[in-house]
């Protein structure tokens, strides 16, 4: 692992070209953690995960152990794994699903044992055709290996896993939308309360929904102990985490690094990681944690990659995706494209999101393409304020799910940092960046 001597936890196998095969998996310790877990009581396994202080790797960063402890006891409970990775510029789950599906599955089986769930679903984004095939193969191999199905490794514990394909809808990444989708409906996020699927989830039954990368950490935690995991990182952000780095860097890629011990500067400039901004150009800004996170500037480069550290600085680590924009980037165009994404992916249930996203997209489009008016800048913020009053961070929630209030931050960031750029667009009647 670059920069610190922390072990690779979720990407250890990825250096093998055949990392996704059951043969390689078994040769490199696969299902040993499951065998160990089955000698422990379910409560002991859950205690290890709780001791690891593993924060969910989907985007919200909710402690996995606490989520598990909230599962309401019931004869029928479910575990649903969220592999619907669609957050712009996030591509870590894609890599894990395609390159080490068995590891994810082992995490699922261990988690199901800890939760005493007998039916799990792995929801994989529909656009990952290869990932779906590899996950389905992993499930087949697990059944034939005795790691899945009736009486797993003669332990008396039984579990069935179904790989469920999505069909293209960003909103299904929201856990309640994902459950609706898994029930065969439109991916409409559910009205809260109930706040937690752990109480009322799939088919109305108590359900734990965990992210793919969260699951991939479980085998290591069981094999090495929760304490060993918690010893890595710092503060509330324990262990390692995958960061998907893209945009104007020399070496884009998904990198597993120790949390908190590594900074954005390391991630973007270290020769083993991003290796610097392309062409040696200056950094204009970077998006630290997905399309909805407020942008950071060069003054934030020395912030550590930790959930609370980034949160206190006014943004979020979110889905662990970092997009680097160099000095040639048009900030208006960038904000327009992100806003258009939200406008396209709004599910349409709530008025502020459905209408507001389209209005904002059209205003930004006309500024970028030479039809902007000076009052448009105030109008942008006014519409943002209607979607999320105050337009501050973290955003005020006004809608069923967080998608709507996720729209203003990129616009407010772009406008706040690069107001002069917007004014030049309006005055010159077009984009100065060509």
């Amino acid at each position: 692992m670059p920069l610190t001597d922390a072990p690779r936890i979720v990407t250890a196998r990825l250096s093998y070209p055949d990392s996704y095969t059951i043969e390689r998996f078994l040769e490199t310790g696969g299902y040993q953690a499951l065998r160990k877990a089955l000698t422990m009581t379910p409560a002991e396994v859950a205690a290890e995960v709780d001791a690891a202080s593993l924060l969910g790797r989907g985007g919200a960063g909710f402690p996995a152990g606490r989520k598990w402890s909230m599962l309401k006891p019931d004869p029928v409970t479910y575990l649903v794994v969220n592999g619907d990775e669609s957050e712009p510029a996030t591509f870590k789950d894609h890599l894990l699903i395609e390159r080490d599906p068995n590891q994810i599955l082992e995490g699922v089986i261990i988690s199901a044992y800890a939760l005493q769930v007998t039916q799990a679903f792995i929801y994989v984004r529909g656009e990952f055709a290869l990932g779906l095939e590899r996950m389905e193969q992993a499930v087949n191999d697990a059944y034939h290996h005795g790691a899945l199905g009736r009486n797993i490794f003669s332990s008396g514990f039984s579990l069935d896993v179904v790989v469920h394909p999505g069909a293209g809808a960003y909103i299904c990444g929201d856990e309640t939308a994902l459950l609706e989708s898994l029930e065969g409906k439109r991916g409409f996020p559910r009205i809260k309360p109930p706040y937690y699927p752990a109480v009322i989830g799939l088919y109305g039954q108590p359900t734990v929904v965990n992210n793919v990368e969260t699951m991939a950490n479980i085998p290591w935690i069981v094999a090495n102990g929760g304490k060993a995991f918690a010893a890595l990182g710092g503060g509330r952000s324990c262990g390692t985490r995958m960061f998907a780095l893209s945009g104007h860097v020399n070496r884009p890629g998904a990198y597993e690094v120790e949390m908190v011990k590594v900074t954005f500067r390391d991630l973007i400039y270290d020769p083993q990681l991003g290796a610097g901004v392309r062409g040696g150009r200056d950094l204009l800004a970077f998006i630290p944690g997905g399309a909805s996170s407020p942008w950071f500037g060069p003054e934030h480069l020395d912030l550590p990659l930790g959930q609370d550290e980034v949160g206190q600085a006014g943004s979020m680590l979110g889905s662990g995706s970092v997009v680097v924009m160099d000095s040639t980037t048009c900030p208006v165009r960038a904000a327009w494209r992100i806003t258009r994404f939200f406008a396209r992916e709004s599910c349409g249930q709530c008025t502020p999101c459905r209408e507001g996203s389209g209005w904002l997209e059209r205003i930004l489009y006309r500024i970028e393409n030479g039809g902007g008016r000076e009052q448009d800048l105030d109008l942008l913020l006014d519409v943002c304020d209607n979607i999320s009053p105050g337009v501050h961070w973290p955003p005020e929630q006004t809608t069923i799910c967080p998608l709507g209030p996720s729209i203003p931050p990129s616009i407010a960031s772009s406008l706040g940092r690069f107001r002069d750029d917007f004014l030049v667009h309006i005055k010159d009647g077009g984009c100065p960046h060509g």
Partner: protein
Amino acid sequence: MSYFNAAMAARARQLVSLYPKARSALVPLCHLAQEQDGWLRPEAMEEIAELVGVTPAEVRGTASFYDMLHTEPVGRYVVSICTNIACLLDGAAELLDHASERLGVPVGGTTADGVFTLEEAECLADCDHPPCVQVNHRFVRTTTADAFDRLIDELAAGGRTEEIPPHGTLVRIRRSGGLRVPPDEIARERAQRAQGDG
């Protein structure tokens, strides 16, 4: 007359049997129908409705929510080019324009011979290979205009079929473990046994 052919009908029954509630199989069944015909025919939606116990309108209403489910015919190859933020920073809009010109169709259009449909996609989660291009949801990693043209030539000439099956075929691995007997087969067997007894 059933919509699904015999082999597909067996897979359809198996899909329904995998879930605690039949309706969960709705989207997988739509993928199955697309595997058979490339798109979701009205007859397919009617049969799926019957299989999962909802109305055909509910199937259409659900299917139309999802980008990958097509209620109109599409080409044998659906070419998706991402223009979201990471790809936009690396020439995605220009590549999409080039693709539109090369294929001679606007974004969303299908070539007259029915071979190619061009789509503009949202982030496809392969952002370290921008601009990201998929054909039938297989990542092809052709990031330049020249590479794109070569890919189109190859596909038009009938190449790369191993790697890129016709549109609609999503998962070629068949589930072989943890299979439950579909409820209608159990019912049929019971009925046959009852007849035998009588």
